[in-house]
C-alpha cells in the first residue's frame, strides 16, 4: 500500500531513567490491592533520580534522535516541547533552555499542551509545517515527564495507570520513505476539564500557606474526580466514552483512507492500564499482543512521551516491520483524544 506523504519520522530517541521500581515492591509500601494490580497490568515503572529533571531527560532523548538522524543541530528549524505534568519551575522558558542545551542556533521553539495527547499534536504540527513551508527541513519534537513525589503518588493518585518517568524525541523531516506520517486527527471536549486538575499553583488559586498545609498543589485525580464520577455507573460510562472517542476518530480516519482494521498491523497506544488498552484492542479486533502494551508493562504511563517512546521500542524489538501500517492512539486530561496512522 502506497501513500503520497513523504513526511515522516527520520529518527527517534528515548531516555529511560536507570532506576526502576517494581509494582510488587510498591504494592506493600503503598497498600495497593490485588484487584488494582491485576487490571493495571503494569509491572514496573522507571523513576528519575533526584537531579534528573524534565529538561535533562528531554535533552538526552533529543541528542540521541539528532545523532540517529545524522543531522547537525543547525539543521533543525523548529523545536516543539511537551511536558504535561510538572516543569522544573512553574514559569520559565524550558523549550528555549532545551534548544540552547542542544546547540540549536537557527530554530524557533515553543511548548504545547493538550495533556498526555500533546506529543501526537506536536507530531501533527510538525507534519503540517513541513508540508506548508518549503523552508522547513527538520522539526524536533521532544517530550519529557517526571512525576515528582512532592506533587503526586505515581502508584495510587490515579485509578487508570501507574506513572513512569522518561523522555522521547523524534526528528520529523521531508523526503522520508520509512515511518511516514499518513494522517492524524484530534478531538477535545472541555466539559471534562474539571475532572483532573491540580487545585493550586495557577491563576485560579495562587499558592498560599493554606494550600500548602492542605497539599492542594498535589495531583490527586481520584479525589478531584469524585464529585463528577461518584458512582460505579458514572465511572463506567466515562471510561466507555474515553475508548469510544478514540475508536470514532480511528474509524473516521480509516474510512477516509479506505482502510479497515485488518490493514492495521499494530496499535501503538498510550500506556494506560491493561483494562484500557485491552478495550481498545478488542474494539479493533486485535489481540493485546498486537499492541504496545508490553512496553506499558515495563515502563508505565510516561505522560505525553508514550507514543514516540513505544514506537522506538517496537522498532528496536522488531515488533513492527517496514511497510506495516500502525495506528497511534492517545488521550489526555481535559479531555483530548488523538489518533494517527504511520507507515513503518
Amino acid at each position, binding site marked *: 500500500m502506497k501513500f503520497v506523504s513523504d513526511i515522516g519520522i527520520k529518527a527517534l530517541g528515548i531516555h529511560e531513567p536507570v532506576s526502576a521500581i517494581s509494582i510488587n515492591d510498591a504494592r506493600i509500601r503503598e497498600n495497593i490491592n490485588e484487584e488494582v494490580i491485576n487490571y493495571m497490568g503494569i509491572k514496573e515503572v522507571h523513576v528519575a533520580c533526584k537531579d534528573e529533571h524534565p529538561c535533562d531527560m528531554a535533552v538526552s532523548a533529543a541528542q540521541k534522535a539528532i545523532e540517529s538522524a545524522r543531522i547537525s543541530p543547525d539543521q533543525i528549524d523548529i523545536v516543539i516541547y511537551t511536558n504535561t505534568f510538572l516543569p522544573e519551575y512553574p514559569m*520559565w522558558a524550558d523549550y528555549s533552555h532545551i534548544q540552547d542545551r542542544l546547540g540549536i542556533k537557527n530554530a524557533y521553539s*515553543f511548548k504545547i*499542551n493538550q*495533556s498526555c495527547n500533546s506529543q501526537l499534536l506536536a507530531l501533527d504540527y510538525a507534519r503540517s509545517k513541513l508540508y*506548508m513551508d518549503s523552508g522547513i527541513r527538520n522539526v524536533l519534537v521532544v517530550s519529557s515527564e517526571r512525576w515528582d513525589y512532592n506533587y503526586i503518588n505515581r502508584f495510587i493518585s490515579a485509578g487508570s495507570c501507574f506513572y513512569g518517568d522518561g523522555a522521547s524525541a523524534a526528528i520529523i523531516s521531508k523526503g522520508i520513505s520509512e515511518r511516514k506520517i499518513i494522517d492524524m486527527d484530534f478531538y477535545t471536549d472541555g466539559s471534562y476539564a474539571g475532572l483532573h486538575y491540580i487545585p493550586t499553583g495557577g491563576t485560579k488559586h495562587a499558592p498560599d500557606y493554606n494550600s500548602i498545609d492542605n497539599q492542594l498543589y498535589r495531583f490527586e485525580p481520584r479525589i478531584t474526580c469524585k464529585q463528577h464520577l461518584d458512582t460505579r455507573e458514572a465511572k463506567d460510562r466515562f471510561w466507555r466514552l474515553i475508548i469510544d472517542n478514540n475508536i470514532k476518530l480511528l474509524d473516521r480516519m480509516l474510512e477516509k483512507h479506505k482502510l479497515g482494521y485488518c490493514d492495521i498491523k499494530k496499535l501503538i497506544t498510550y500506556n494506560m492500564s491493561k483494562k484500557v488498552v485491552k478495550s481498545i484492542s478488542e474494539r479493533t479486533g486485535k489481540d493485546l499482543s498486537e499492541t504496545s502494551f508490553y512496553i506499558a508493562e515495563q515502563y508505565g504511563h510516561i505522560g505525553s512521551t508514550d507514543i514516540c517512546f513505544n514506537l522506538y521500542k517496537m522498532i528496536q524489538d522488531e515488533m513492527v516491520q517496514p511497510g506495516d501500517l500502525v495506528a497511534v492512539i492517545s488521550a489526555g486530561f*481535559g479531555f483530548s483524544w488523538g489518533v494517527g496512522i504511520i507507515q513503518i
Partner: protein
Amino acid sequence: MTFLTMNQNKYNVGIMSTGVYVGERIITNEDLEKISDTTDKWIYDHTGIRERRIADENMATSDMLIRAGKMALEQGGIHPEQIDLVIVATLTPDNIDPATSALVQAKLGLKNAFSFDMNVGSCPSSVYALITGAQFIMNGQCKHVLVLMGDMISKLINWNDRNSNYFFGDAAGAYLLGQAAYGKGLVAYHLGTDGTGYESINIHSGGSRNPCTHESLDQRLNCVKINGKKVKEFAVPTLCSAVNEVLQATGIKLEDVGLIIPHQANLRLIEEAARILECPFDKIYVNIEKYGNTGAASVPLALHEAIKSNKVKQGQRIILVSFGAGYQWGSACIEWCAAEDFLK
C-alpha cells in the same frame, strides 16, 4: 526564520475580528508610590507607563480569555459551533494541569473545535499563536480558528517589589482567523528563539526543582522575577530586525506599511527602535501608558484599539511584532482584509 505565505499555500488567512478584556481595577503609579519605594516620575520616565489594569481577585486567566473570545466571535459574526480550533497562549494558566484551553472551549460552547495551549514565554506569544492558528487554516484543516492570548501576572507579583510591580497589567486578547481571498491577509512572518535567554523570566518555586513551601512563600519565591536589564538589551535590536525581516521577505518598504503594532513592553524601547528604523512615530501604535505590559495580550489589545480608532484600514499593510523573555521574537505582515475578503 522568515516565510512568505501569500499565495504559497492552499488558503490565505486573515484576521476577521478581534476581542479584548482588560482588568477593571486601575492601579496608578501614585498607588505604587504608597506601597513601594518608587515614584510616578521614575516609572513614567523609564517606561512610559502611567497606570495598569488588574483583574478581580476571583477571576482566573480563563475568565479573561472567555470575555475576549466572546467579543471576537460577536464582532466577527461567527457562531461558536463554527470554530474548528481554539488556541490559548498564556504563561499564566488557570492550573498547572490540565490545559486552560479545555476549560475555555467548554465555556465558550465551541462544540466542534479541538483545542490546545501554547507556551511561548508571555510577550512573544501573540505572533507565535497567530502563526500557529494560521497554519491550520493555510493547510485546509480548519475554516475558523479562535486564538486567545492573555496573562494574569498580577497574582504572581510581589507588589512590594519596586523592580517588578510597575511593569505588568492583566488583559486578554483574541483574534478570530478565517480563510481570506486570494492575495489577502497574512503576507509573511518571521519567528526566532535565542535559547540563551531561557532564564530571563522565572518563578523559582512550585516546580520539580523547588516545591512550594512556607519558606519559599516567605521569601516570595512564588513571584515573577525578570532580568529586565538583559531583556532590554535584547529588545531594541530584536524589534528592529523582526520588522526588517518581514519587510525584506515581502519586498515592501517601510513607507508602504500603514501601521506597526509592537509588543507594548516599554515606550522608551519602542521610541529607540523607531529612531533606528527611521520610522515616523505616528506609524507606530502605542497604548502602554494605560495598560502597562500585558504580556500575551499586548499586541492584540493594541491592534483592537487601533482598529476601533480607524488607524487600520482595508488594504493597508500592517506589521505586528512581539518579543520577550526566552528570548523569543516574531513578526507578521498582514494585508488588512475587509469583511467581503473572507470566504464564506
